[in-house]
């Protein structure tokens, strides 16, 4: 990196340094927030209020140890909210990708009446804002009995989402000769899909699964709407912020924030290549 910089003109070097500095400051602003949250979680409530920027006098681990006792929202304790988060983000993201990829594969590789219309319908649906669909969606979930229930995860199986477009584009560009070769070997349609086509789409599937999981893990708006009695951790934090009015436990709030941030950080650090290389400026590379 630095070798190539040596060959650059002075003006380019200056520009490069300036851009690097901007990105560095941007990165530091994110690290600062995480570091400040971690520091606050190790201070007492009084220390946080009286001197928010000072270092902890003594490391206050009680914010973490007392979390299960103090951090509860609408009858859901921390453990319950953690389970809800894992259930709706992991199972939900997997179901969503599993159904969407199968749906997109069928629509792109098989001709049936209305197959092209489906593409148009999905395009229109992805452009509709939640304000336009929220009321009808709530009514639908209510009628289906999916409000405030773990079965709400089935709502992820709709398949009519932005990822359909990515998968459809991917399969459109994937040659059908693979399928023909498999057919000659005696494979049926399901075997072609599961053993030939799906494995080739694995990187795309995994990167979209990760982005969906990340979005679901941090999502609180739809959980607040459809699952108020089964809050996930982000909803718990949002609600506990209100509960704080009568609890005076800012330390516990920050400890909960840290715990919620850790899985996302772990996943990003472990799979940042998948996330950043599979998703390019123009869309998903696959």
């Amino acid at each position: 990196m630095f070798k190539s910089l040596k060959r650059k003109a002075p003006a380019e070097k200056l520009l490069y340094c300036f851009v690097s500095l901007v990105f560095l400051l941007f990165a530091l602003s994110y690290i600062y927030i995480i570091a400040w949250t971690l520091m606050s979680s190790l201070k007492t409530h009084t220390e946080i209020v009286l001197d928010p920027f000072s270092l902890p006098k003594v490391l206050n681990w009680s914010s973490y140890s007392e979390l299960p006792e103090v951090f509860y929202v609408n009858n859901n304790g921390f453990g319950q909210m953690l389970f809800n988060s894992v259930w709706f983000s992991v199972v939900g993201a997997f179901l969503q990708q599993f159904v969407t990829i199968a749906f997109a594969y069928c629509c792109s590789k098989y001709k049936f009446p209305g197959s092209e219309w489906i593409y148009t319908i999905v395009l229109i649906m992805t452009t509709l804002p939640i304000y336009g669909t929220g009321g009808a969606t709530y009514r639908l979930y209510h009628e289906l009995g999916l409000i405030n229930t773990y079965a709400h995860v089935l709502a992820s199986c709709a398949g009519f989402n932005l990822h359909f477009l990515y998968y459809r584009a991917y399969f459109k560009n994937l040659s059908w000769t693979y399928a023909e070769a498999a057919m000659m070997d005696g494979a049926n349609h399901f075997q072609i899909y599961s053993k030939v086509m799906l494995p080739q789409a694995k990187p795309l599937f995994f990167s979209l699964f990760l982005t969906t999981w990340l979005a679901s893990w941090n999502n609180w708006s739809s959980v607040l709407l459809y699952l108020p009695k089964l809050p996930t951790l982000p909803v718990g934090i949002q609600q506990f912020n209100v509960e704080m009015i009568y609890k005076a436990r800012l330390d516990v709030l920050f400890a909960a924030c840290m715990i919620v941030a850790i899985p996302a950080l772990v996943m990003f650090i472990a799979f940042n290549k998948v996330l950043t290389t599979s998703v390019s400026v123009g869309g998903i590379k696959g």
Partner: protein
Amino acid sequence: MMKKGKKYLAILLATAMTAACLTGCGGGEGGNKKTSSNKAGVDIEIAVWNSGIGIEWLENVIAGFEKKHPEYNVTFSDSSNIKTVNASLGMADIDTTDLYLTYVSREYEVMEPLDDILDATADGDQKSLKEKFNATYLAGAQSEDGHYYSLTCGGGTLGMVYNTKMFEEAGITQLPRTTDELTLVCDTLKSYGVTPLCHFVQGGYYTYMTQVFMAQYDGIDYYTNNFYSCKDEAGKSPSKDVLTKKDGRYYALKAYEQFITPEYVLAGSNSKSHTEIQTEFLNDKAAMMFNGSWLSYEMRNLGSSDKFAVMQTPVLSSIKDKLSTVNDDKLLRKVITAVDQISEGKKQLSDYASGEDYKIGDTVISKADWEYVTAARNTVASNFAGQVSFVPTYSNSKEGAKEFLKYMYSDEGLKIYADTVQNPMPIALSTGETYDTSKYSAYAKQHFSLLEQAENLPDMHMNKRHAIFNAGASDFAEVEYIFSFCTNNAGEQMTAEQAWKLVIDKINDDYETNWLKNIK
């Protein structure tokens, strides 16, 4: 190298996450506060606002009730956010709640009348609940149609909470009896280097102090039956003249103008949250804060509250306008001292009697003035109407919910509540005995004395309020007067005159075009 570093960091964070998960999944009953015995019987589902008094009292009452009534199975859900508790209220097809213990005003169409509970005498009681209730509260709780739809189940008394250590160090031995004297105390504290007052976001609990000032100046009858009924002296209701009249609100503003100033109020009070400012107050950042009986329970995590005490809301000095024989603040303070001594049992009213009138030293105080000052002094700020119990009309277990309420308001239930919260509801015990305060903190005992002293509780007008107050009207037409008095921003700072003008302008603008139209 970089790759290895990332791997190690990921492993470290994953370990932390696992440890955190195990911490979260560990024991501790607090994780799920719902009581559920999973036994056969009639289910009663309660939705409760987890306010400053917490929900421990409810857990204890439920335990007592289920012991006495094993045929019922009580569960509850709670939140500190009133909107969350009330989110499903009125949605009969999805709301399974049988009993609400929350803040709601005038939602009569979804409330079951509770008259039968008031008329009933609970097991072990000697009087009906109606006979036990504080008369002022009950009068305020009755709706226009004569029914009682909701009853208090929380709240408490309020007063000026002060730091005894700071007062002692500043040499203040006489607690302020009038608003003028309160200003003098602020001055003394300030000269001693202490910030006299604090509040939270745009005034905090000063709303309750204003109610007291209004009732002190205009009298509790006018306040309840005219101002909050929006009824003029000719009987016209609603009447715009009532809202634009220069009444106790104006004189409250004049008093605030003296002591709610940037010099006397802790910096940041206008923007800091309830929890932040109370934490600062408990850590000696200001000497006084208008607050309630629940303060010590609410902030119990922050340790002892022994250095705090509560004083009765000072009397509005402007009430002198209403008196013929008390013309200066010094004399008003003397009369208040005499009234206090009578309340505390140190003196008898007859000690001051002088024919039809009364006498302090050589000064004669007319009977009317004496009674006016006594009523003003014994007007106590409260918010008992701020948390109420009611049964939704669509409840599947109305009888069960009412049976639970009967127990909750029985002597046994009231004692459980008072022992847990350290502050009784405004309901006497049927046996005539007083609540056992021996285990109360000094702070809780002072609030109990306030409640006993109270002749007038202006907060309890809730059901006397005219519907216009639910249609947009309010005491000060939403003008943030406390915020305006102590802001350091010169552009937003107002005098009492300017604030009052703004109030009147807003009433003139909104009365016909919005409020009258919005009345349901």
